């Protein structure tokens, strides 16, 4: 009977060591938030903390002058339920802002924004 409380305590301890993320928040992006890159990307790749309902995710990528440069809606990334990719057409250097609205499979909506700079 001593095994049960012990294993429970171990399990609890292990669980506490891990941060829990609920709702889809941005885990990483390519180009990365705040980064400076030399060549313009063909797409912006966003990775979240949860699986996404991509048909209802919205991403706008704005040029320094405020013009939207994304060329299509967010696309699912096959094999990665927590990722989406947004094709962009970037021709000029400058600071680009990514504004995202995500819907995760737990039915929750989240949003955020970040920027990256293109300087050849």
């Amino acid at each position, binding site marked *: 009977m001593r095994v049960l409380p012990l294993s429970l305590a171990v399990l*609890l301890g*292990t*669980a*506490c060591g*891990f*941060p*829990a*993320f*609920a*709702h*889809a*928040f*941005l885990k990483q992006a390519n180009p990365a*938030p705040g980064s400076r890159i030399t060549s313009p990307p063909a797409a912006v790749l966003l990775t979240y*903390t*949860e*699986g996404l*309902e991509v*048909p*209802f995710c919205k991403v706008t990528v704005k040029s320094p002058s405020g013009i939207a440069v994304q060329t299509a809606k967010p696309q699912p990334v096959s094999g990665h339920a*927590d990722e989406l990719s947004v094709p962009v057409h970037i021709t000029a250097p400058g600071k680009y802002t990514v504004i995202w*609205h995500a*819907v*995760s*499979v*737990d*039915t*929750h*909506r*989240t949003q*955020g924004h*970040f920027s990256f700079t293109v300087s050849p």
Partner: protein
Amino acid sequence: MDVTGWVLLRAFCRGLHLAGFFSAFGTMFLSATLLHKRGALRLRRLAWAGFAVACLGGAGWFLLQAADFAAAQSISDVIGALPIVAGQTRFGTLLLTRMGLLLLAMLLFQRGWPRSAALIAFGGVVAEAWLGHGGAMTGFVGTMLLFCAVLHIAAAAIWLGALPALYVALKRLPEDALLPLAQSFSPLGMACVGTLLVTAMFQFILLITYPQALFTTAYGAVALTKLVLFAALIALAVLNRFRFTPSLPASRPALLRNIGAEAVLGLAVLLAAGLILQLEPPAMADMAGM
């Protein structure tokens, strides 16, 4: 109606859907187990009533969730989003599949096959867990939360879902059958309560983390409400077990009144569950800035 109003309405529909689904399943479960030798006791109408509530709540939830997904500004926005929600989201496909399973279970139950009916409905009950945070997250924490949610939902569905059927059975059965039924339901209820407590504790650690969040966040406040309602439910169950069950059949009216009260509290818990599932768990509030 402002955003909060829509969220509350969606939560209400989801809670109602859960309650109807649970009671339809619980009726099948009780018929398949403790009432198995009581085939003459017809609980079909009760199960259909649960099914109807599950459909009604589910339909409302589906529409309101579609509106929320699409950030709809008009009815036509919602209508445009419906096929996408139904065919291309986990929420939509899961809800429709679960309702399909419950319908199939109902038809089997109607035919007089409560065991297969209960088994199929049980699949529909636990599938709900894949819409929670555990189902959405990957890695150790996600798996852990999903596992907890499956157990939590199963225990709640067996215990709370069986209450309406238990009420009807205790009301209709002959006097000599009351004591065995009430006595055999007790350990089942205890097992469910234990499972609910342990899984709730894990969910607390993973999703709330800090006890003070119970008093400072909306999520915590609803969790606390659930806990208080749960405590009241346990108190009623203890009263049933030690006070009213031993003095059956004389105490039948008192026991029935108590189980009725339990069912009402159970509904309140499920409505609170519908609400908490719409809210942001405190453990991830720090992430919101990114």
